[in-house]
């Protein structure tokens, strides 16, 4: 049921306005924080106020402007978009708190927080995009807005990372543009409101080109191998940026895009006939294993997390590529699960770096004694990634496995098991070193007048996110929690037929 | 270089020749050019415009809009020459943008030396000077004749302007540009050099009032038509003459 409502456009607009205000008045710390928090709360409020409707099956739409018939900018808060918007707007709030603590005394904070807000604006814009044009508009804007954040340090290394980042994402964007334009030329519409707009009467070759272009275009940001090269390098950015952008916004936007392509542009039914998703699934499976293996060899904490991200993102792609309802549900839920777990880890790593200056796995022996709360949170996140029951990760893996069996893809269960082992292989050594190895040298004591192991603004988001990872794992089936929203989304994906649930 | 130029020229020539040899023969009375729009001008031109010289009729009446912007073109040339940097040496202190460009070209020979080498400044022969001054009034009379007889004989405003300018230029050569420039008072100069377009704009507005059409001529009132036509011609002759003369004088100084 479609209801015209301005909230889908207001949500991205709020952070856009916030960015403008930060650029204009951001020199004062008070106003910068005031606007950022105000926008974060308003945005969260807007998104959450749509949640009850979404659960009832209501879809809020708002057509902003139509250029020529069939081409225009429109917003549509369907269940999947809502899911993504909820994740990103919630995490924006926490990351903002974290960033305020982390960036204290850093340079060019006006620019930082301004573009930070712009990124979130575009992320929500992507979530609520009604058609591919709108989607692409925000998708590319996100690329541009993240660039100043990636090169924030302005060192030679940062500039190089920025250049590589832009090369990958802009070429990907070019492919996405071509794909989107071809969709428009063949289907005559760009809407993402239906379970599939393409039909097979335009020829398999054209469809294949479209699929390849769009998958490359969005896959670049999702870090699917061999298009992942930018992700580990871009880790030179400040940690809040790495956390929000490389664990949440940028990479998830890519995965979100691929899912949209599979279920809303092509449709499960058509892809089921064409079989294009099989190579995509294989590639995703390969990425999961390969990047986990690479992660084992990384000593730099953030780079290890980056390779872990690449592998986790491919879970989402693989889940989507299986074309079964259960796998799709798992893929969607994993957007949230991975986001909260990974952001926890990034926060912890950032807090360690800020508090002790350590950035490598080999340097953090015995850190649990110095930073017990942070390391506990890290451990929870690690357990979630391995897929231990009662954590969020377990839900995903369970449903992914069920979905894979539903699709007769037994090999995927194998991949899951191998991946879980590899996850354990690269996360548990960190936990082990932190808890069970003696410190090489005494850790620096708490700063004067501090009761906690690190700044409160750093610790608070860590605790909340870790708690949420547990909460997700325990309350999977409760209405209103992510799982139920994902189910609504999946229903709409398979409304046009396809593999029977 | 020469061979390439020749090749380019031939490449251009070929299509052009193909184009022109395939045109209808112009000599024949049934050529499109003689059966087209021109027929009406020949048949009704005199009656509609009051001009026996149909070239003038086309120029001022039928296609007066073209002529309007023709005089604008020549005004553009004047504005162009006036807008260019003047004086032989770069300004002391200079302008940064100018200087930025000029820095590269500093290798050039000093302008003054070049000027002297050209032999400028040789005094004018008294014979030439006397003849020019003697001829000037007659040239002016000739120009006026072309101007006012233009509607029945070959001639008209532009031709008169060219002769007027010739007087100024000839005088400029023998008396020096400064003396000639004094012939036109400073206060009048901006008005005079814009005389032609301004005359057109005025007539256009009058025509608009009289006939309801921009640059329209009242076809039934030959006196008014002739007066308007003459006004335009005078404007063109004055404005065109001043501009042409000034173009020369500006480059001279």
């Amino acid at each position, binding site marked *: 049921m479609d209801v015209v409502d301005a909230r889908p456009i207001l949500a991205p607009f709020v952070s856009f306005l916030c960015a403008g205000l930060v650029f204009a008045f951001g020199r004062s710390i008070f106003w910068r924080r005031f606007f950022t928090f105000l926008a974060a709360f308003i945005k969260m409020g807007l998104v959450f106020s749509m949640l009850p409707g979404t659960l009832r099956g209501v879809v809020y739409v708002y057509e902003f*402007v*139509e*250029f*020529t018939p069939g*081409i225009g900018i429109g917003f549509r808060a369907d269940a999947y978009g809502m899911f993504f918007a909820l994740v990103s707007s919630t995490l924006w709030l926490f990351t903002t708190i974290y960033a305020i603590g982390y960036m204290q005394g850093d340079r060019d904070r006006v620019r930082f927080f301004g573009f930070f807000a712009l990124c979130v604006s575009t992320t929500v814009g992507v979530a609520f995009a009604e058609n591919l044009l709108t989607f692409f508009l*925000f998708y*590319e804007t996100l*690329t*541009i807005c993240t660039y*100043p954040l990636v090169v924030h340090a302005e060192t030679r290394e940062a500039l190089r990372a*920025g250049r590589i980042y*832009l090369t990958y994402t*802009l070429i990907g964007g*070019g492919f996405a543009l*071509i794909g989107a334009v071809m969709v*428009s*030329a063949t289907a005559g519409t760009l809407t993402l409101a239906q379970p599939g707009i393409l039909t097979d009467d335009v020829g398999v070759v054209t469809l294949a*080109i479209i699929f390849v272009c769009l998958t490359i275009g969005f896959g670049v940001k999702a870090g699917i191998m061999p298009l992942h090269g930018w992700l580990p390098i871009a880790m030179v950015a400040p940690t809040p940026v790495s956390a929000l952008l490389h664990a949440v916004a940028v990479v998830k936007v890519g995965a979100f895009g691929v899912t949209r392509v599979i279920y809303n542009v092509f449709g499960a039914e058509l892809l089921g006939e064409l079989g294009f998703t099989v190579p995509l699934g294989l590639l995703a499976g390969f990425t999961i294993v390969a990047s986990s293996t690479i992660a084992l060899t990384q000593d730099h904490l953030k780079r290890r997390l980056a390779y872990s991200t690449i592998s986790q993102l491919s879970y989402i792609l693989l889940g989507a590529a299986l074309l079964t309802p259960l796998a799709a549900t798992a893929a969607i839920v994993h957007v949230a699960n991975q986001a909260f777990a990974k952001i926890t880890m990034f926060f912890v790593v950032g807090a360690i770096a800020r508090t002790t200056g350590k950035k490598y796995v080999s340097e953090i022996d015995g850190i649990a004694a110095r930073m017990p709360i942070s390391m506990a949170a890290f451990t929870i996140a690690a357990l979630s990634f391995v897929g231990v029951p009662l954590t969020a990760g377990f839900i995903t893996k369970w449903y992914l496995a069920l979905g894979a069996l539903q699709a007769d893809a037994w090999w995927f269960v194998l991949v899951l098991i191998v991946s879980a082992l590899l996850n354990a292989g690269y996360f548990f050594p960190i936990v082990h070193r932190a808890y069970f190895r003696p410190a090489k040298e005494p850790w620096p004591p708490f700063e004067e007048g501090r009761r906690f192991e690190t700044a409160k603004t750093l610790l608070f988001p860590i605790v909340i996110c870790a708690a949420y990872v547990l909460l997700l794992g325990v309350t999977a089936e409760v209405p209103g929690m992510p799982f139920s929203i994902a189910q609504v989304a999946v229903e709409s994906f398979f409304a046009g037929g396809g593999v029977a649930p | 270089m020469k061979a390439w130029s020749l090749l380019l020229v031939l490449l251009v020539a070929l299509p*052009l020749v*193909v*184009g*022109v040899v395939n*045109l209808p023969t112009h000599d024949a009375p049934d050529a*499109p*050019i003689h*059966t*087209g*729009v021109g027929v009406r001008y020949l048949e009704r031109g005199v009656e509609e415009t009051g001009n026996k010289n149909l070239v003038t009729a086309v120029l001022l*009446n*039928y296609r*007066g809009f073209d002529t*309007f*912007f023709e005089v*604008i*073109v020549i*005004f*553009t*040339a004047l*504005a*162009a020459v*006036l*807008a260019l*940097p003047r004086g032989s040496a*770069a*300004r002391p202190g200079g302008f*940064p*943008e100018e200087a*930025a460009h*000029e820095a*590269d*070209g500093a290798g050039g020979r000093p302008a003054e030396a070049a000027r002297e080498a050209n032999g400028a400044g040789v005094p004018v022969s008294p014979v030439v000077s006397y003849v020019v001054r003697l001829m000037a009034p007659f040239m002016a009379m000739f120009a006026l004749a072309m101007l006012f007889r233009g509607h029945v004989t070959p001639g008209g405003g532009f031709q008169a302007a060219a002769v007027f300018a010739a007087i100024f230029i000839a005088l400029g050569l023998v008396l020096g540009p400064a003396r000639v420039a004094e012939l036109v008072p400073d206060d009048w100069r*901006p*008005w005079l*050099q814009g005389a032609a*377009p301004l005359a057109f704009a005025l007539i*256009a507005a009058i025509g608009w009032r009289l*006939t*309801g*059409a*921009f640059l329209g001529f009242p076809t039934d009132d030959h006196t008014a038509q002739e007066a308007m036509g003459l006004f335009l011609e005078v404007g063109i002759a004055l404005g065109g003459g001043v501009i042409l003369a000034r173009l020369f004088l500006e480059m001279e100084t």
Partner: protein
Amino acid sequence: MNGGWAEALPWTIVVPMVGAVLTPVVAARRPRWAGAWAWAVLLAASLLASGLVYRLATDGPFAYDVGGWAQPYGIELRFDHFSAWVLPLLLLFVVIVPFSWRYLDHVMPDERRPAFYALLLLNAGGMIGFCVTGDFFNLFVFTEVVSLSSYALVAVGGRGLAAFAALKYLFIGAVSSLLMLFATAQLFALTGSLNMADVAGRLAEVGGGPAVMVAFAAYAVSFMVKTAMFPVHVWLPDAHAIAPSPVSAVLSGMVVKIGIVGMLRVYQVFFAADVLELGAFNQTLVWLGAISIVMGAFFAIFQDDIKLMLAYSTISNIGYIVLGLGLASPYAVIGASVHVFNHALIKATLFLAAGAIIHQTGLRTLSDLRGIARRMPQTSAAMAVGAVSIVGLPPTAGFVCKWYIALGAFESGQAPFGFALVFGALFIFVYYVRMLNAFYFQEPVHDVVLEAEEAPWSMRAPVVVLATLCLVLGVLGGIPLAFVEPAVLDLLPFWGN
């Protein structure tokens, strides 16, 4: 036919022209008044032009018979959807002129200002005339007004290299004008008429043939030179780079477009007459357009001088437009027509921003201008917006056009050109990233940069307004698109047969 707002049609041309003639009169005592006068004149002309656009929007295209002569005996002015370009054109002038007030301080002494503004007004008036005339010979006359003033405007800033660049421009431009005159004469010899609509009708009777073909080709080549398409682009970079920045904005943004408008006019005639098989010609345009995109981008990458780089990117962007026209599918032509305006807007933003930086620092190369964003944040931000826009990335004005032209490429089954279009643009972004890095993320190397101040408001305001428009039109890009759509759909049935 005449009447109502149509009466304003000839005056829209005449007002800037007469304004130009009166500039030396007005500014006789105080040369600095010339700038304000020119601005007022342009404002008045834009008011008239908005009246014309209003009439167009309510009643559709209309014509005006100059002197009240019935067609084809007099000169006809026509105002259709392509002519509507005069309104944005004038508005851009209205924004650019205030920028030039202070900018000229370091370009020329005060006493030359009246002549400069007269040239600017003549340029504007000539372009308006060019866009609205319905007569081939009249088209030539207006071309000359525009060209002549442009040659001079290039050279106002300096004596040596500027004059040389202007002279090069003049020689090439004059030959192209001659070709145009030749083509006009050719058509006249074929049909005995000069009125565009009448020529179309008579051509249909005469039929095709080599002579018609040569006339069309002469027009085409002439306009290609005016737009600086790939093989005949050599005059553009030097001329546009060396001209004072407001002039560069005018030349790069608008003057090169008269070639496009002229091409559309000639298309209208020849397609209405339906005497030529133009599929091959369209294909040529597409190829030349694609090559222009790539070559322009390629050369731009190697420039250190910011204005030279902007000049090369004009070639690239003209390539988009020509490619769009050659594709001859509705979306592509709509996109190309709108890019005529959008590119003017973006290029004006970039050139004015670059001009403000050059004015404040006296430096014009990337290596010198490192770190300028610290000292000139607003101008640099405008430059960044322009850079993103010219590459055609969302959410800016450049994106909308690129989308439509690419859509047209795929729609007409010429997918490779769609790829060329999309990736050609990214190619040029290599340069702009270097520029943005230098401006924002690198340490200043030049003392002047460290002490630079933000430009005076009369220069900053135009830049900021233009940059904002670049962003606004990225989101509201549909307005101009919807506007040209009827004209394009009207024209297309005759297009590439």
